[in-house]
């Protein structure tokens, strides 16, 4: 057996507008929905089915912050941690378009919309991207824009 060297981390120079792809899928489980909501968003429609069904969300729904966090996990595992990510200063136009219900399967996707070198710092640039999550019915449930600060290779 030979050791294969780990692939180098993608650097700012390796990104370009137009790149798109999936970031993986996640199953929305009852236990995880309740665990997150109990800790961070303890509203009845996030904690139990009856309350969820009686609410405008129409079922036992994940907190929008949980949906965002599930997206972040997929983004970190499948894009950021194989790149020279230096984090992000924030997100724009976060939309919770449809309720995310226990039992849903969400598929995450990204599209790079632009790359901009830093005007002041030589060690980094900015990668602008659109993120979205789609459920098993093909309905978009969440979208947002984000700029990742990306380290340069050279």
């Amino acid at each position: 057996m030979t050791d294969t060297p780990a692939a180098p981390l993608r650097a700012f120079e390796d990104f370009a507008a137009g790149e798109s792809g999936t970031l993986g899928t996640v199953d929305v489980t009852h236990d995880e929905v309740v665990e997150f909501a109990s800790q961070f968003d303890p509203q009845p429609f996030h904690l139990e089915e009856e309350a969820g069904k009686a609410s405008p969300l129409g079922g036992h729904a994940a907190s929008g912050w949980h949906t965002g966090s599930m997206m972040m996990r997929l983004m970190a595992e499948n894009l950021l941690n194989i790149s020279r990510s230096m984090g992000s200063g924030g997100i724009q136009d976060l939309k919770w378009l449809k309720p995310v219900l226990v039992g849903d399967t969400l598929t995450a996707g990204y599209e790079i919309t632009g790359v901009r070198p830093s005007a002041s710092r030589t060690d980094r640039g900015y990668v602008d991207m659109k993120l979205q999550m789609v459920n098993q019915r093909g309905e978009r449930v969440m979208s947002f824009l984000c700029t990742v600060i990306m380290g340069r290779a050279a």
Partner: protein
Amino acid sequence: MGLDAIEVGVPANVGSHTFEADEIVRFAKKYDPQPFHVDEAAARASHFGALCASGWHTCSIWMRLTITNTRKNGGFSGVSPGTKAIRWMKPVYVGDTLEFFNEVTSKREMKTRPGWALIEVFSHANNQDGVRVFEMESTVLVPLD
């Protein structure tokens, strides 16, 4: 709640939270496993210089404090279609205490959804040095009495 009862332009202190190392790592391992959020050595070697919280963790703490504050002091609640902007302006390090504020910036009854109001909220958090580290512009749909 009636629309008149919702106060516009007055920041309300919704509470504080101190971010400890174990909770920063626990949240990040599950939801934002970038090295500078889960590993102290990796964080020290990074441009952050030390272990810091995921921005999503900061937002989640904001949500919890907002709900707790509403239950304690009264106020409106509803469902949110989203946030226009979230700004993670400065890192949140181990031991930082963030004080959160919410301010209603506008309110109106929705023409498209009778009996519902659209409320816009500006939120921010300062750390223990008085430095603003977080801002958010969000929207809530509130059922009116």
